[in-house]
């Protein structure tokens, strides 16, 4: 599960961390759209080459590399299965591009999630006129991802202690072994959700219709710069896609 680390906020200070979450959200969406527009190796590589310095600026390159290592098995699977099964004229080329696209998409959103504190995110949503309750639910969901992971490990320990062998047997048995993990995980999560709801209500959640906020987000010059550059990139790539035939380059085999 270590690849999820790349979607987990890290408390740090960097240029990227200090940007307004709305600007970062826009940037992430643009880079995701651009990654989806192209399915050729070169443009996707260019996207990654642009994104990686941003990760360095966010002081998160090592974390990203670790997550990619965790993801590498899945990436190899995608590569192998697509190469074997794809109907595309050059299957290897196609599957490399698909793999790069997945990496580019993950990286785009990881830049957002790595650098936006859940509270900032909900504040951003509220200032984008999302109702407070929904914004709160979303930031709670983000907050509980690591807790859920911890819980999963504790459950695995508890079942192993009863003699459940999670990593033994044929694939079918292994899949069946997930049941003793997943059922308690769901039950525990539901129980926790109920008790959080109760404790929130008993502490007066939703008591006053008009909320005030301690910190309000404000767009600064650098945020406008980010939005402007992102917009420019978006327009440019759409234009290139529609009107300029790309030089077709593919692996020579």
């Amino acid at each position, binding site marked *: 599960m270590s690849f999820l680390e790349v979607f987990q906020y890290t408390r740090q200070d960097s240029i990227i961390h200090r940007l307004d979450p709305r600007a970062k959200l826009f940037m992430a969406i643009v880079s995701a759209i651009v990654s989806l527009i192209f399915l050729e190796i070169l443009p996707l590589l260019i996207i990654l080459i642009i994104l990686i310095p941003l990760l360095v600026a966010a002081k998160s390159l090592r974390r990203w590399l670790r997550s990619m290592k965790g993801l590498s098995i899945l990436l190899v699977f995608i590569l192998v299965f697509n190469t074997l099964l794809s109907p595309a004229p050059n299957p290897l080329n196609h599957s490399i591009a698909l793999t790069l696209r997945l990496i580019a998409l993950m990286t785009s959103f990881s830049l957002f999630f790595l650098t936006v504190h859940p509270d900032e995110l909900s504040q951003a949503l509220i200032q984008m006129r999302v109702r407070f309750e929904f914004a709160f639910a979303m930031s709670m969901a983000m907050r509980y991802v690591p807790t859920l992971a911890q*819980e999963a490990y*504790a*459950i695995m*320990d*508890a*079942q*192993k*202690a*009863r*003699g*459940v*062998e999670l990593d*033994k047997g044929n694939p079918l048995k292994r899949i069946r072994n997930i*049941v*003793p993990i997943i*059922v*308690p995980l769901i*039950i*525990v999560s539901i*129980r926790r959700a109920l008790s959080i709801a109760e404790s929130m209500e008993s502490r007066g959640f939703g008591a006053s219709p008009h909320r005030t906020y301690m910190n309000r987000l404000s767009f600064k010059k650098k945020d406008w710069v980010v939005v402007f550059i992102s917009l420019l990139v978006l327009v440019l790539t759409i234009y290139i896609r529609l009107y300029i035939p790309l030089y077709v380059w593919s692996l020579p085999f």
Partner: protein
Amino acid sequence: MIILENVHFAYDGIYTALQGVSLQIDDGERIAIMGTNGAGKTTLVKQLNGLLRPHRGRVILDGIDTKRYSVAELARHIGLVMQNPDHQLFLDSVEKEILFGLKQLGFSSEDARIRCESTLLNLGLDSLADRSPFTLSGGERKRVALASVLATEPRVLVLDEPTIGQDAKQKENLAQMLRDLNEKGRTVIVVTHDIEFVIENFPRTVAMANGTVIADGPTSSVLSNDDVIERCSLTAPQLTLAARSIHAIHPDVSERLTLLSNLEEEIVRVLRGA
């Protein structure tokens, strides 16, 4: 016999939880492990069945280093019940839940049924056998989790905080079951903050603080030691307090008593003398 030799462990290699714990646990002992929150008690018991492996030092079961065994193999000898019952209950009836543990360890279905029934009875769960564990109260779920391991009668039984949420009667039932198992030669190890439960049922106590063993010996002497009580964030047992008050008046009565029977003897002796 289990021997821990200078066991060190740190979570993520950073948060030191155990720093040089050495213990010898003989077959057929009843041992309580006590200590403040974060003293390393749970980390210690997880070393016993291999859920956590020592970073330095060794855990030896019957002369063989446990690093050679998988957790599942160790589970046949060492039954560990963790604190949170919700982490292990996943079937739709109490009975199935207990049979699952038995089947995992390879009991025949007839044997499993007999063990299941007697365990349910002993823990006062017989009327709940067909209920879904998820509809039970916290204390009941806790007992189901205990039952699922108690039924397998492992050679070494390790319970992490078994008395939480149990009323006095259920605690007594549990204690009785543990004593019965112990009489059959099983080793029983319990992690708990419940000082009265320890005094009444466990002859040996291991006190821990900051990842080390600060005291290990007969319960009566460990728990009448003020330093231990202080460092384990416990309050001295009622009987020790009573013994101290009597000691203040009659200095020949020991102030380090923890058992009711001993205190009774002393009082009778003092009254006779008077």
